């Protein structure tokens, strides 16, 4: 006989198979986006973070610069029929990026060379942190720039900003109180057996009811088993329970109303005619990247999100950059070529699916050294960013070539500073690296103000990056590195 007033085991199991694992978080999610104003809610941005420091010089290549072959004796990519870019006779693209080349020739791609931190640091940790927070000063608890921009866009989707990754991306770290973002984080499998929705808040001190464990983690997660409808959760106090219930409902909606959400990436690596398709078959360890890209595109197209972020690691090519690599364990190609083929494939597929109001932004924490180290490249400074979409003013930015016996001087280039990509640096701190011509925040500000059409006056309202972004946007000191590139 069951005791009166007792809590039955099955009662608990109705709520969650694991009973009581999860916990708390801050204010109601209904506040999200309510303060937003001014921006264009129909715009969609997909961010791709290339972790490790992509070698931009071997992506968009200054073939017409004699220093290129001299600097890269062992890893230079020769020009060929698959490298030419319309309108840029001295510049080529890596032959593995066939899809991206086609998009470029259609005017849909902006390659932004020499974007970086003017301080010239070369630490993965610092540079990732600064790029993701949009700040120049290191602050451990800083929020990401995406939710700050989101706060100025009247987004109405289920999860206006979402990171899809095996871990949280700081770029999407937010204060849940005002501008929450979501992190779908799970061990991805073809069956999509487990998925966790995480909501982050930046201020570990608020609200006080949060347990010490959550305070340390700075996040709340709600997890659902595939198809089981089981969402184990507990909260502290009616307010937190309500918040978590909202999260559960979001996850349930996503999984229930969007059955097509669970993707395995098979639709992406099947672009016809790409000679690297065969090589991708050997990269099973990176296969999840396609699944995440596919899911991100789905969420953007369905109006679930305005911002979606994925990431791809492996770009720290100190060694075996163009020779036999270990990615996937059996490929005979260099690591860089495989990664570029994957990236190009995913972008091409995503672009084909995304609407005209969407943009893809590809970033990396820094570029690499001009000179190879025998089989790879070391940490550099200026990076290559890429922007893809119908709203993009296509071209190669911040890269100019002088006349040579076989090539006329490039006409008016795009970008803020006309210099050879591999020109000797004007400051010793950029030794053997691409000297940045554009501050890394300029492209972010342009996307915020031009693509999302956030009124510039609203930039100063951004809680953390506002003041610095305002200074860059106004550029009263006429710093050429703060000049807009006009790629949007």
């Amino acid at each position: 006989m069951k005791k009166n007033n007792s809590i039955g085991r099955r009662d608990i199991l109705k709520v969650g198979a694991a009973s009581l694992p999860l916990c708390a978080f801050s204010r109601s999610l209904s506040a999200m986006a309510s303060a937003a104003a001014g921006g264009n809610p129909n715009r969609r941005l997909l961010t791709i973070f290339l972790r490790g420091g992509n070698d931009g010089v071997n992506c968009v290549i200054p073939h017409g610069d004699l220093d290129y072959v001299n600097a890269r004796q062992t890893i230079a990519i020769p020009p060929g029929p698959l490298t030419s870019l319309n309108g840029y006779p001295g510049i080529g693209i890596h032959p593995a990026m066939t899809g991206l080349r086609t998009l470029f020739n259609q005017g849909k791609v902006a390659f932004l060379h020499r974007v970086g931190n003017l301080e010239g640091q070369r630490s993965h940790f610092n540079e990732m942190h600064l790029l993701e927070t949009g700040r120049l000063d290191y602050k451990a608890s800083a929020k990401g720039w995406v939710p700050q921009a989101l706060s100025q866009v009247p987004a109405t989707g289920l999860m206006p900003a979402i990171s899809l990754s095996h871990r949280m991306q700081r770029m999407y770290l937010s204060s849940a109180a005002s501008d929450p973002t979501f992190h779908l984080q799970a061990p991805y499998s073809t069956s999509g057996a487990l998925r966790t929705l995480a909501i982050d808040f930046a201020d570990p001190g608020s609200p006080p009811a949060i347990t010490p464990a959550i305070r340390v983690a700075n996040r709340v997660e709600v997890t659902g088993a595939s198809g089981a409808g089981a969402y184990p959760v507990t909260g502290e106090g009616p307010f937190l329970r309500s918040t978590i219930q909202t999260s559960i409902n979001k996850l349930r909606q996503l999984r229930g109303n969007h059955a097509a959400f669970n993707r395995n990436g098979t639709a992406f690596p099947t672009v016809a005619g790409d000679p690297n398709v065969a090589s991708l078959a050997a990269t099973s360890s990176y296969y999840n990247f396609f699944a995440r890209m596919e899911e991100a595109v789905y969420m953007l197209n369905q109006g679930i999100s305005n911002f979606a972020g994925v990431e791809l690691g492996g770009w720290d090519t100190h060694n075996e950059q163009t020779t036999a690599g270990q990615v996937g364990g059996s490929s005979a190609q260099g690591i860089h070529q495989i990664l570029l083929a994957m990236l190009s494939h995913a972008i091409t597929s995503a672009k084909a699916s995304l609407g005209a109001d969407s943009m893809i932004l590809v970033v990396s924490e820094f570029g690499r050294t001009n000179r190879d180290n025998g089989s790879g490249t070391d940490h550099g400074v200026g990076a290559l960013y890429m922007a893809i979409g119908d709203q993009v003013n296509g071209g190669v930015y911040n890269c100019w070539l002088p006349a040579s016996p076989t090539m006329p001087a490039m006409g008016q280039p795009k970008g803020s500073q006309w210099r050879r990509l591999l020109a000797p640096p004007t400051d010793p701190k950029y030794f053997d690296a691409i000297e940045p011509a554009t501050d890394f925040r300029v492209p972010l500000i342009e996307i915020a103000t031009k693509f999302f059409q956030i009124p510039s006056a609203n930039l100063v309202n951004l809680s953390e990056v506002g003041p610095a972004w305002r200074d860059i946007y106004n550029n009263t000191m006429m710093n050429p590195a703060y000049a807009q590139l006009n790629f949007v």
Partner: protein
Amino acid sequence: MTWKPSLLALGLFVAGPHLPLAAQIADLEEKHHVLSRISFGVSPSVFNSIITQQDLDNHILEQLHLVGNVSQGAIATNLLNYFPPVTNCGTIPTGSTSPGPWTTSMMQWQQLVRMITSEDQLVEVMTYFWENHFSTSVGKSGAPGGNGRGQCMRQRNELVENEGFRKLCLTNFYQLARHSMYSPAMRYYLDLAFSCENAGRSLNENYFRELLELHLLDATQFGTGIPNYTNDADIQAGTRLIAGMWVNRPTGNDAPYNQVTNTTSTTCNIFPALTLFNGPNQTHIADFSVPALPPSQWTSVNLDRRADELLRHVIRQTQSKVFLCSKLLRYFIADDAPESHPLLVRDCIAAWGDLGDVRATLKVIFFSPEFRSAARRWNRIKLPIEVAVSHARALDAQFHSVTNFMDVGQRLSAIDTFLSASGATLFTFPSPDGFPFASQRQIGMAAYWQQGYAAYRVYEDAVPPTQPLDNLSFNPRPLVEAELNRLGFSWSTSTSAQVALATLQLFFRNRYSQLDHRVTSAFLDEDSATGSPPTSLWNPNGPDADKRLRLAVALCLSLPQFCER
């Protein structure tokens, strides 16, 4: 819901005859807390030993190897004997794809066996700490390619490196850093093996940069206050200094571990980099003066000595001491430990000394009031590996019916699954903990749910025995019964409330809520045999008492506080 001592516990607790009740509870809580921090989880048998046979301070000194003669113990030794020795990979013919004696899974099983069963727990904790600090991966711990000898060498390099950390983990930081620098696993992992001055090329900065940013100094402070070793001229000069510290590639002769050659490599015939230091502009790296070394003295011994001098010089910097001491304080006390306890930081740095006395520093931490403070308990989130291992240790898990290493692996398959799902498998591309972008993954609360779900399935009677989680042998009844007795109750006359109290005390001391207690009692009171409505209350002498207890224990191990220590 707040975490505070249960009134039931306060009313019934009788821990011993000598202390007032509140003091008894506080004493047990403190012991539980300390054991949770200096081991991979509180084992009831060790806890009982601390209470009945020796005091806590003596146990700490034993774990620090300052008194007694603690070892890994017979259980660990017997289990580890099922694994093959680290052998000579040169016996594998060139070009053969025959595997070596190890697999990556075996390496992980062996490590888990140590973590779960070794009585030398602090050594295992610190071995993992340094393995994580000087992070390498078995996928890149040797020359690339090859399924036969190459793979064998990568596994051997990783195993040898790990064993070195185990031997040195309580000694001094300089020896640990030196062990890492000379380890083939590290040299390959961060490309030092491919760095040599060769006609102005082939200098690979990866290792030297990470040596400074990850191993010796704090990456997050780079460019924000560390005066030296931050500009790229220093990085490149340091890279030159250690360039050519080669490891023999896996040739047919299977070079001895740690051998450094300076003349046999086909790409680094000698050390022309040294000539760079004879010029007027290359005589120092930051404030470190590179000792002059004429070509006649270019021997591997002298070259090693120069690298050692640079290593010692950086380790002596105040910034390095603050970085390492802070990391230890964060790990053992709390995330805000360095900032909140400036005096303790000062004491730790004093104990750290010139070259990083690990044992002395840990002693300062373990005997500090900050470490034992009630306010510091349960405020560290376990890493996935800590969740998994402490799960097994909390129940004094046994490896039953083991006759070979495959049996050992089969018993660990549930933990393997959990670690794999958490993205935290041992030896495979681990992220060093403690850095902003890496640690977020490590402390992700997905682990909470997963461990809770796993715990439930371990005990759920509906799960068929072939499920992978039902492997390690647990028998919670003796543990709960002993706790009942400590509380003044008897199993044969116990109520569900008393058994729930004992079970929660066993795992959490007073770190549970009234709701936790009610739910645990409810699990004991219901009949779980069928899907029909429950019909009977807890009967300790009933035929299903053990099964009900297992379910209640499963519930406790799925509570969120089990993910804290």
